[in-house]
């Protein structure tokens, strides 16, 4: 590649030829509202919650780098299994909110959850006109559960 500049500017015309050649190509664009793009299965779109698996252990809330998960729960007595035995308790989830206005989609909460309660789903259509509406509560997070994809096959 020489740095010299030749007079008739062949480079200019080669470049113009390339743009003209591009003209006949179709634009590789997904026309979004009409055509939906399908994200890859591992895409970190939104976090879904399986309420039944949650034990209110607070690991996710604690490990979140910007503390955008709010959990409240209470203990409920399950009743004695055997007479005289210690009263068994169960943790029940009252509140599980993720503030997607704060979330940085690192996925640490999903990773640390020891009980299969949190899953990533590639769903991405949940933008809101108000920032406050980005706070997804327990019910909304559970709705996402239906969209959790199968894990993809692996490269051998």
């Amino acid at each position, binding site marked *: *590649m020489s*740095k010299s*500049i*030749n007079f008739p*500017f*062949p*480079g*200019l015309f*080669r*470049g113009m*030829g*390339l*743009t003209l050649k*591009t003209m006949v190509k179709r634009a*590789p664009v997904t026309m979004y509202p009409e055509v939906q793009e399908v*994200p*890859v*299965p*591992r*895409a*970190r779109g939104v976090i879904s919650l399986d309420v039944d*698996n949650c034990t209110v252990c607070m690991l996710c809330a604690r*490990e979140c*780098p910007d503390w955008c998960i709010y959990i409240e729960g209470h203990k409920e007595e399950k009743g004695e299994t055997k007479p005289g035995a210690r009263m068994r308790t169960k943790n029940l989830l009252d509140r599980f909110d993720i503030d997607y206005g704060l979330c*940085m*989609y*690192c*996925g*640490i909460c*999903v*990773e*640390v*959850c*020891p*009980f*299969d*309660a*949190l*899953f*990533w789903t590639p769903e991405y259509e949940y933008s809101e006109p108000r920032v406050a509406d980005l706070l997804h509560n327990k019910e909304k997070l559970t709705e996402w559960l239906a969209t959790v994809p199968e*894990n*993809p*096959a*692996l*490269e*051998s």
Partner: protein
Amino acid sequence: MTSREMMHRSESAVSIELQTPDMTLNIGPQHPSTHGVLRLVAKVDGERIREVEPVIGYMHRGYEKLAEVRTYAQITALVNRIDWVSGFASEVPFILGVEKLMGVEAPERAQWIRLILSELARISSHLVFISSYPLELGATTPLMHSLREREYILELIEEVTGGRFHPNFNRVGGVKSAYGGGSTTKKQSMDLPAGFFKRTSEAMDRMDKICDDIDTLVTGNELIKMRTVGVGIIPPDKALEFGLSGPNLRASGVAYDLRKSDSYLTYDQVEFDVVSRPGGDCYDRYLVRLHEVRESVKIIRQAIDMIPSGPLQAKVPRVLKAPKGHVYSRAENPKGEFGYYIVSEGGKMPYRLKIRSTSFSNLTILPWILKGQLIPDLVAIMGSLDFVLGDVDR
């Protein structure tokens, strides 16, 4: 008064009247060619720049301080936001540092995956440069072509890690190996998805094609040459003096590449050339990056042939605690040497994290090199240094 004296006086009067004061021009923080929020306080005489003073910090997010109250796993999620156009590449030196501190080593396969993803990040970062640099010189079309191709690279990164920009895929002792810590579905391995190698080599073919297209559109373009050849020459001694690294240094004729000279990951097992050019002008800085894309393609092609199978994660304790000590670890990022100095007092969190970010060091040459340049050349030179403001301000 003699006529000679009068003439002399009138001449001096004229010269006093015609003195033009320098104009202070604030370029930025909101300016189309400052890549975000860099502010240059320039004293200009017409279009000629007398002196320039960069003002940074408009995007300071305090990562060094944030890191002091975050665990190592959390910091990994933060550091890929420092240089967001090559997110994966800024994770690697940090995780290598923590591994060195804790004395663990990632398994072979994890190292290779890191290498492939680092090179993908390098390609995507260089493609951003290749797209934005001609745009700064006024050519709009290369942007569309190279950003279109970058999308294929980002898709590959997303396919493996789940994130296009912020992979957060490195873990101490390997890479993210399972979807989560649960018992059933989430325990599944998060190895490379099926067909990844095939799609990667297809994407690499596309990269070869786009490099040729960019050659036609930009490299051979006489107007681009007029704008860049001989503009903003950084001699090798000045480049070293100002602590430049990466393509900016190599364009000045110093063939210094950490991948070769201080090899990490498995870079010593792949064959590639360190691209360097002798000129040190904007055109050379552009060409070095374009050739590095080709070299990265070469590296990835070798890597997908050489990658062994095996585990993704070495055995590490559940709660990561680094022993007392300090370590400096560095890697060759797309923009140059990226380093972390980690001081640990033995806890779950580092006592201090010092980030040697590439763009900040590369930016230090601005006042020297912009002195006496024209405003259009300012744009050409600034663009050719390829900095990201998040990387400058941290």
